[in-house]
C-alpha cells in the first residue's frame, strides 16, 4: 500500500501526535480538598504551586471546601456520587470513620509501595506517625498539620504576682499555687484551658501513660470501650472542678474560644494547642512564653509523650490509576525537609519528619523563637506506648460533645469528677456500640 506521506514525514507526524498526546496527559489534575483558612490557605496554595512548578506531569489544585466537618461531608457526598476528590484533608477525630470506609480510601503505605516512591516510616516523628498507623505499623493517611498541647504563661502577670516566669509551673499542683498567687495579685482569672477534652483528658491520659480506651485506645478494633474514668483522670478532673469553685481555674469555652482570654491578658495561664503560637504573637501586648504541659509527679512514668491533633491527607480511591503516581510524587515532595521546615516555621504546626526538625535547628529557628520546639520535645519525649500513640474511636465527634457536656457539669459544681467521667464513659460507649453496628459487615 502506498502512502501519500514518505517515511520520514510519517515519522515526524507520529512524533508530533505523540507529543500532543503527552501534552494532553501533562495536565492530569489532582484535586486537594482542604479546610485551611486565612494565612494557612495561602501556605497551602504556595506548597501546591511549588510542586506544580517542580514537574510537568501533574497539577495539584487545592480547593477550600469549608471547615473540617463540612469538607468531609462534601467528600462523602462526592464519593457516593462516584466522583471523589483525589486528596482529602480530614481532622484527627474523623480517622476511625475514614479507616472503616474500606474501598473508599487508599492507604498511604500501599500507595507509596505501589508507585515505588521512597518512603521511610522511621523518618517521621513517632507520635505523629503512630496516630495514623494501623496496628501493624503501616501508615494509613499522610500527616499534614499536627499540633500538640503546651502551657502558655503571661510573664508580666507572673512578675506582678511575685512569681518567676523563668521558672514556669511544671506540675499541676504548681499550676494551682501559681494561679492562687495570680488571683491574690488581682488577676481575675489565673488559669484556663482550650479544647478541654483534647487537653485535659485525651492528651492528659497519654502524658501520664494511662489508658483512654481499651484495645490499645481503639487501635485494636471496633469493639473498643472507653476507660478514661480511671483514678488518675478522676483525680485531675476533680482537682480542676475544685479550682473552678475556688476561682483559680476559669472555664472559657469548649474549643478555641478561651485563647482570647489569654491574649487579652485576663487569664495568665492557658493550656491549649501549640498551633496558637502565631495568634498569641500577633495579639498579646505583654511578654509571654511557652512552657511544657504540666503533669502529676506522683504518677509513675509521667511525663510520657503528648498526642497530636490536627489533620492528615487521605487518598480517595481512584478509577484512573494514573492519579496515584501523581499523588505519591506530591506526598514525597510534601514530606521533604525543606517543605516541612517552611510549613513548620510559617504556621507553628510541628514538622512531621525528624529531617525537617533537624533543618529547623540548623537554621536557628528555636534560638530565634524560644519555646517553639517545646511541642516537638513533648511529642518525642519517650517512644509512644499503647496508651500514648493516639486514639482510634468511632463517632468521636459525639464522644467529644459528651465529654464537653459532662465536664461542664463538673465546672459548674453539679457533678463530682468521678460521677461525670463515669457518665461520660457510659454515654460514650453507647456511641461506640452504634459505630460498631454501622461498620461491621
Amino acid at each position, binding site marked *: 500500500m502506498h502512502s501519500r506521506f514518505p517515511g520520514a514525514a510519517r515519522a515526524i507526524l507520529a512524533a508530533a501526535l505523540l507529543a500532543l498526546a503527552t501534552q494532553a496527559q501533562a495536565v492530569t489534575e489532582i484535586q486537594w480538598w482542604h479546610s485551611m483558612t486565612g494565612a494557612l490557605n495561602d501556605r497551602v496554595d504556595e506548597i501546591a504551586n511549588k510542586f506544580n512548578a517542580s514537574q510537568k506531569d501533574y497539577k495539584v489544585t487545592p480547593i477550600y471546601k469549608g471547615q473540617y*466537618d463540612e469538607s468531609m461531608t462534601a467528600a462523602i457526598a462526592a464519593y457516593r456520587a462516584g466522583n471523589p476528590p483525589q486528596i482529602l484533608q480530614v481532622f484527627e477525630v474523623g480517622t476511625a*470513620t475514614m479507616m*472503616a470506609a474500606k474501598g473508599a480510601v487508599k492507604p498511604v503505605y500501599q500507595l507509596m509501595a505501589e508507585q515505588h516512591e521512597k518512603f521511610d516510616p522511621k523518618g517521621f516523628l513517632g507520635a505523629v506517625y503512630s496516630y495514623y498507623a494501623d496496628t501493624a505499623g503501616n501508615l494509613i493517611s499522610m500527616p499534614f498539620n499536627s499540633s500538640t498541647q503546651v502551657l502558655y504563661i503571661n510573664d508580666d502577670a507572673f512578675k506582678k504576682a511575685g512569681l518567676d516566669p523563668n521558672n514556669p509551673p511544671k506540675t499541676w499542683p504548681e499550676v494551682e499555687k501559681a494561679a492562687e498567687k495570680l488571683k491574690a495579685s488581682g488577676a481575675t482569672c489565673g488559669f484556663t484551658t482550650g479544647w478541654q477534652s483534647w487537653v485535659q483528658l485525651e492528651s492528659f491520659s497519654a502524658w501520664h501513660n494511662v489508658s483512654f480506651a481499651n484495645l490499645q485506645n481503639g487501635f485494636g478494633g471496633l469493639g473498643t470501650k472507653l476507660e478514661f474514668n480511671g483514678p488518675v483522670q478522676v483525680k485531675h478532673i476533680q482537682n480542676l472542678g475544685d479550682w473552678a469553685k475556688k476561682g483559680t481555674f476559669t472555664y472559657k*469555652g469548649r474549643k478555641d474560644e478561651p485563647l482570647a482570654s489569654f491574649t487579652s491578658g485576663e487569664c495568665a495561664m492557658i493550656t491549649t494547642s501549640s498551633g496558637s503560637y502565631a495568634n498569641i504573637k500577633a495579639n498579646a501586648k505583654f511578654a509571654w512564653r511557652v512552657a511544657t504541659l504540666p503533669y502529676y509527679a506522683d504518677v509513675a512514668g509521667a511525663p510520657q509523650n503528648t498526642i497530636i491533633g490536627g489533620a492528615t491527607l487521605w487518598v480517595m480511591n481512584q478509577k484512573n490509576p494514573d492519579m496515584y503516581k501523581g499523588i505519591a510524587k506530591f506526598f514525597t515532595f510534601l514530606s521533604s525537609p525543606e517543605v516541612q521546615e517552611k510549613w513548620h516555621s510559617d504556621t507553628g504546626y510541628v514538622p512531621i519528619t525528624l529531617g525537617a526538625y533537624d533543618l529547623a535547628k540548623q537554621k536557628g529557628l528555636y534560638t530565634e523563637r524560644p519555646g517553639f520546639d517545646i511541642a516537638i520535645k513533648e511529642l518525642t519525649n519517650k517512644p509512644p506506648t499503647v496508651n500514648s500513640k493516639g486514639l482510634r474511636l468511632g463517632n468521636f465527634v459525639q464522644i467529644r460533645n459528651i465529654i464537653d*457536656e459532662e465536664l461542664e457539669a463538673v465546672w*459548674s459544681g453539679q457533678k463530682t469528677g468521678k460521677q461525670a467521667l463515669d457518665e461520660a464513659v457510659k454515654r460514650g460507649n453507647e456511641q461506640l456500640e*452504634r459505630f460498631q453496628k*454501622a461498620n461491621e459487615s
Partner: protein
Amino acid sequence: MEKRVVFSSPWLPYALIAPQLIITLVFFFWPASQALYQSLLIQDAFASRAQFVWFDNFKDLFNDPRYLASFQVTAVFSVLVAFIGLAVALLLAAFADRVIRGANIYKTLLIWPYAVAAAVAAVLWVFLLNPTLGVLTHLMRALGYNWDYLLNPRQALALIVITAVWKQISYNFLFFLAGLQSIPKSLIEAAAIDGAGPARRFWTIAFPLLSPTTFFLLVVNMVYAFFDTFAIVDAATSGGPVQATAILVFKVYRDGMQALDLSGSAAQSVVLMAIVIALTVIQFRFVEHKVQY
C-alpha cells in the same frame, strides 16, 4: 342552579397545577420519604454498608433520657421565641403605625435584622455578651450582675432566645404593620369620637382585626423556632452548658452533618417532622376557631 366554571379539556386543570405539584413532590415529599427510609437503616458514613434495623434508631433515641430532656428545652425555647417575638414585633408595629415623620426610616431600620444570616446574628450577640470580651458583660458586671452563659444554663437559654427573637422580629413586624395599615381608618376614628383612648382602640378594634395575621405568624414562628434555629445554637452555645440549649433541631444537625451519623439524624428529623405536623394540626383545629377573618 349553582354556577360552575368548567374547563374545556379534562387535562388542563391538572396541567395548570402540575408545576406546583412537581415542586412539592420533588422538594418536600421525596426528601421526607428518604428521611423516613434512612431512619430505619443503620449505615456507615460512606453508605457502603447499610442494614435494615426497623425501629432500632428510634428505640435508641427514646431510651436516652437526654433526648427526652431536650423536648422540654425545645418547648420552652419555642414558646419563648414565638411569644416574645410576636409581642415585641406587635408593639413596634403599633408604634410605627402612628409615626408620622420619618416613618420610612424606622420601617427600613426595623427590617434590617431579617437580612442577617442566623450564624452571623449569633456571632453579633456573642460579641456583645461574651464572658471575656462582651461590651454588655462589662456593663452587667459593673452593675453587680455576674453574666457567664458558659456555665449558667438560664443565661445560655436567654442568649439564644434573644438572638432568635431579634432575627425574627423584622418578619413579624412587616406583617403586623401591613395588617394595621389595612384596618379601615373610619373604624378607628369612630371609636375615637366615641371617646376610646389609644390603648382601648388598639385592644378592642385593631387587635381582634389583626387575628388572622397573628395566627399566621404564630404558625410561622413555631416552625421557625423548631427548624431554623440550629445555626444560632451552633454558633452561640453548641448546645451547652451541659445540655441547656440542646434543642431538637440542633441535635439533628450536629449528629447528621458534623458527626455523620446519618440514620440517627434521620430518625430525629422524622420525630421532629411528626411534632411539627401535630402542632400545626392543633393550631388549625383549635386556635383558628378564635380567628376572625
